[in-house]
């Protein structure tokens, strides 16, 4: 029987070679009809024998690599009887429901062309096709068509136009398609912007080889590069960037070369070679050929593989590749800003004339128990949606203050933004405001509800209050737990363990060592660390030694001696509550122990003391300090008791790696003991672990092992970071789940 069927496909189906795929599939089966893009996705009409149409529909389930199908719906039409299958033009009208895809690493076909001297794109740093290349970073509007990208200014040459129009070609309707004759070009410039002589790529490679610092324009912004084995080059990069200690990531040419730096298991290899191309944290090899200044005092090393043709052409010896910024500034992405900001840092600029529309940092991820656990979710991942329970109104979730992301959610899909950064920075705040509008346009979401943190001073909170929409305030640690639940697509109540630096509590104090009984609609505080003063507020976070003082470390210990000039005053500030808000933070307890053990008195980046304490711990040590939960409701645990146990070991001459390990084991033990206590009263058996402290792998591994041994099911993060980058997803999940009217 001859039938004609209309098929609608929704999801990430534009700019990913979907129409040529449909064309090939239909003509291969001898079906007649048409395919086209509209604002909602792809529409298809196929006509032919009923069984063949059935086969066509099955074939749709295996789309090209970058396509993500979320929904296929069909409807019967009256057959026309015409033959032939055509691709029809895009329609700009209607609602925009199609999804812009993430930027994608250069595919194998394009890479072959890049390296083939006979190909017309040989050595061309912008080769791409429907299966790879820039997307999110160049899209200015929807529908995803060339005029709505930063390629708009480049008119295709006849050869490219022919490929673009040929349904059988890999570049059919590849919006960024271009070649040396018609596309963007790289130039190598001196810090004053003057073009340098010679072939740019070769000259850039030579500059790196000779120990220079190169600024290069990547997909989402400018990066700074230096040869990773070159101690003086890396040291120069550090000092010019005012980045004292924070580890640098390294780009290697291929997996084989990555294996010379760190341990690459199957899961790490899959992440390294994925089209997302994140920075993957690897356990560093002792003999890795890296300058000491690349990642001082760190057992892991962040490695990524080239993700654009430009990076492929540059790759050789491992290169430090770090964001093009000064200190804590956001990464530069406009040419004039980059030259202004980086002129004292870079010896030369490898730049090009394709604008970047959205600043997007490299993503950072790692493997925990064989599965991905992201630390920064940005380029390559964004704007891929995270599923949420359907229903609920369209929501804007404003996120936290540091490592901010925002999230727009509608119809069961949460679009978590790229890493925005620290909002008190004006450039970042501007990117935040513009990003929210851009996402709203791209995904056709007009929020009717705004979710925000409770901290009155967060600029994201202030942004929320400025909007003229109903608000849902979501407590910071509830948002962490809800984020972990949404990440795992769970909705039933859990025992939430949220350990982080600080977040605003419902009682106006700063929380951060929290046991919650939570679901998406609400939470109860079941237990927490006993509050201690934070002497000097933010200064106590910058100077971990103050947290040692706040936890009652005796004045005859080294940490007190090293800080003798201010020790007594800081103790008095805490005792008398002068400039000392109270906190139940777990991160600050780690700080206290790190300072006490002489690991670090002052930090230059967030979480540094805890990270270095983890690096110092001896993983072979299995014993732990005892932890005691009191009988209160909520129960409390004394961090000062743990500190006292550390002091006793220190006085007894126990080595630092053993003490650090015992402390980690004690905190893991606390997680288990707290969960058991909550299980007694609630019967809940699932534990969600979230908050920045759970980026500590030693702690996480031991906590999960202990919980599983205790019969708990454990949820950890796989899609968004456990840190504040995941907060917006949690806020969105809570807001979407709240009863509303």
């Amino acid at each position, binding site marked *: 029987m001859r039938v004609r069927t209309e098929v609608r496909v929704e999801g990430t189906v534009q700019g990913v070679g979907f129409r040529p795929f449909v064309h090939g599939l239909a003509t291969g089966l001898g079906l007649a009809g048409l395919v086209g893009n509209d604002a909602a996705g792809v529409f298809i009409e196929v006509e032919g024998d009923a069984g063949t149409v059935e086969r066509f529909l099955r074939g749709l389930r295996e789309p090209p690599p970058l396509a993500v199908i979320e929904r296929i719906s069909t409807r019967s039409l009256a057959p026309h009887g015409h033959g032939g299958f055509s691709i029809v033009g895009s329609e700009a009208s209607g609602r925009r429901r199609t999804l812009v895809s993430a930027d994608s690493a250069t595919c194998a076909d394009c890479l072959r062309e890049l390296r083939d001297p006979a190909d017309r794109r040989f050595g061309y740093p912008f080769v791409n096709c429907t299966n790879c290349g820039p997307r999110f970073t160049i899209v200015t509007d929807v529908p995803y068509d060339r005029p709505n990208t930063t390629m708009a200014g480049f008119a295709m040459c006849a050869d490219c136009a022919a490929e673009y129009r040929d349904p059988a070609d890999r570049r059919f309707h590849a919006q960024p398609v271009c070649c040396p004759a018609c596309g963007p070009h790289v130039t190598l410039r001196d810090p004053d912007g003057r073009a340098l002589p010679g072939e740019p790529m070769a000259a850039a490679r030579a500059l790196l080889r000779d120990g220079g610092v190169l600024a290069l324009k990547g997909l989402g912004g400018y990066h700074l590069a230096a040869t990773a084995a070159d101690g003086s080059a890396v040291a120069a990069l550090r000092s010019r960037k005012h980045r004292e200690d924070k580890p640098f990531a390294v780009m290697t040419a291929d997996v084989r070369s990555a294996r010379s730096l760190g341990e690459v298991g199957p899961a790490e290899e899959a992440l390294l070679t994925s089209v997302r191309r994140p920075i993957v944290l690897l356990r560093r090899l002792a003999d890795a050929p890296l300058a000491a200044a690349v990642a001082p005092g760190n057992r892991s090393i962040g490695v990524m593989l080239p993700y654009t043709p430009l990076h492929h052409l540059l790759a050789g010896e491992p290169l430090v590749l770090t964001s093009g910024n000064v200190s804590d500034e956001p990464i530069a992405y406009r040419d004039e800003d980059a030259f202004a900001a980086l002129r004292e840092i870079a010896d030369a600029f490898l730049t090009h004339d394709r604008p970047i529309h959205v600043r997007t940092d490299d993503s950072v991820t790692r493997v925990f128990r064989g599965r991905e656990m992201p630390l920064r979710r940005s380029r390559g991942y964004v704007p891929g949606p995270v599923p949420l329970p359907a229903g609920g109104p369209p929501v804007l979730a404003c996120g936290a203050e540091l490592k901010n992301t925002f999230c727009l959610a509608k119809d069961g899909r949460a679009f978590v933004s790229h890493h925005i950064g620290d909002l008190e920075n004006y450039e970042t705040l501007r990117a935040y405001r513009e990003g929210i509008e851009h996402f709203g346009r791209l995904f056709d979401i007009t929020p009717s509800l705004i979710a925000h943190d409770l901290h009155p001073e967060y600029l994201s909170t202030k942004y929320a209050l400025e909007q003229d929409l109903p608000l849902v305030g979501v407590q910071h640690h509830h948002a962490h737990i809800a984020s972990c639940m949404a990440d795992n697509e769970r909705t039933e109540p859990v025992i939430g363990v949220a350990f982080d630096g600080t977040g605003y509590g419902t009682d106006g104090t700063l929380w951060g060592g929290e046991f919650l009984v939570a679901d998406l609609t609400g939470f109860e505080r079941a237990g927490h660390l006993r509050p201690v003063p934070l002497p000097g507020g933010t200064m106590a976070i910058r100077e971990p030694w103050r947290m040692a003082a706040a936890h009652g470390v005796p004045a005859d210990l080294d940490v007190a001696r090293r800080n003798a000039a201010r020790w007594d005053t800081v103790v008095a*500030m805490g005792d008398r509550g002068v400039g000392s808000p109270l906190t139940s933070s777990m991160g600050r307890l780690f700080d206290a122990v790190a300072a006490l053990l002489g690991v670090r008195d002052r930090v230059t980046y967030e979480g540094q003391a805890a990270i270095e304490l983890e690096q110092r711990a001896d993983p072979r040590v299995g014993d732990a300090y005892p932890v005691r939960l009191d009988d209160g409701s909520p129960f409390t645990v004394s961090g000062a008791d743990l500190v006292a146990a550390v002091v006793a070991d220190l006085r007894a001459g126990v080595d630092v790696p053993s003490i650090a390990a015992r402390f980690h084991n004690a905190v893991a033990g606390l997680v288990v003991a707290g969960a058991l206590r909550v299980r007694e009263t609630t019967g809940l058996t699932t534990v969600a672990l979230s908050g920045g402290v759970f980026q500590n792998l030693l702690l996480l591994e031991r906590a999960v092992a202990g919980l599983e041994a205790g019969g708990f099911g454990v949820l950890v993060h796989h899609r968004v970071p456990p840190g504040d980058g995941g907060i917006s997803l949690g806020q969105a999940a809570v807001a979407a789940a709240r009863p509303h009217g």
Partner: protein
Amino acid sequence: LSHGAGGKATQTLIQAVFLDAFRNPLLEPLDDGARLSIDGASLAFTTDSYVVSPLFFPGGDIGDLAVNGTVNDLAVSGAEPLHLSAGFILEEGFPVADLKRIVASMRVAAEVAGVQIVTGDTKVVQRGKADGCYINTAGVGAIRRPLGGEVRPGDAILVSGPIGEHGVTVMLARGELDIESDVTSDTAPLNGLVATLMDACGEGVRRMRDATRGGVATILNEVAADAGVAVVVEEDAFPVRPDVRGACELLGIDPLYVACEGRMVAIVSGDVADEALAALRSHPLGAGAALVGRIKDDPPGLVLLKTAFGGTRIVDLLVGDPLPRIC
């Protein structure tokens, strides 16, 4: 109520309660003083209440604070301060010797400022119903010359001297912390300094504010919001005494938010910036004056601080007590 810090919470309280109840064209601008026209005479009228703990501190006491504060509110509105009232609320049992000391320093402050205290009132409340001594002063001044209109892009931003000294002095004087310090309060009458500046720059002076509660940061936010302009200042340009800086670092507070009682922020036309700075520096109370930034058009309503590393930080109006925002 937790509306003391002088930031956004206080503003909200004022708008929600007082403006609603008393609304009239003279109150509407919510300036520190009202400008009145009575039988052809232009007058400025202002009032302020003083609560400070401790009552006596290095460099001053609640008495000269109460005189100088009202003198300064009049002076920075462009008026010449003339007559003050003084109202006292005393806790039962408050030592007469202390009261005499306070009143004596008020007399001296009035003499220095060239104003007269012409009327007053005293109430005594039960023990525990007040903390020693509160003072309210009100003042009238004559407006003899106009200021130079709206703040606009290109204008220069000056501070008349090192910031944060009064607030740090009072915090340390509470004696909760055993900190040795030579810092003294900057309490002083600004009318002489204002006159010097206006003599030199005339209508090049757009706007002046004394940086009291909430510090310079709060004043700058008000300027940005009122004029719909961007205030762009340089972190390194602000004069801060090293011991004030040290105490602020220890206490974890930003000197930009710390109260002054004898410092002002002046916004002047860009083309008289040099003359304005020279004029301020020619006066003993302005010896440490500095040009700290400029008015820009974008982003309107925000105060941006250029940091030493070339970054740009937002200096926001605080909602309440500053709490760390770091996770």
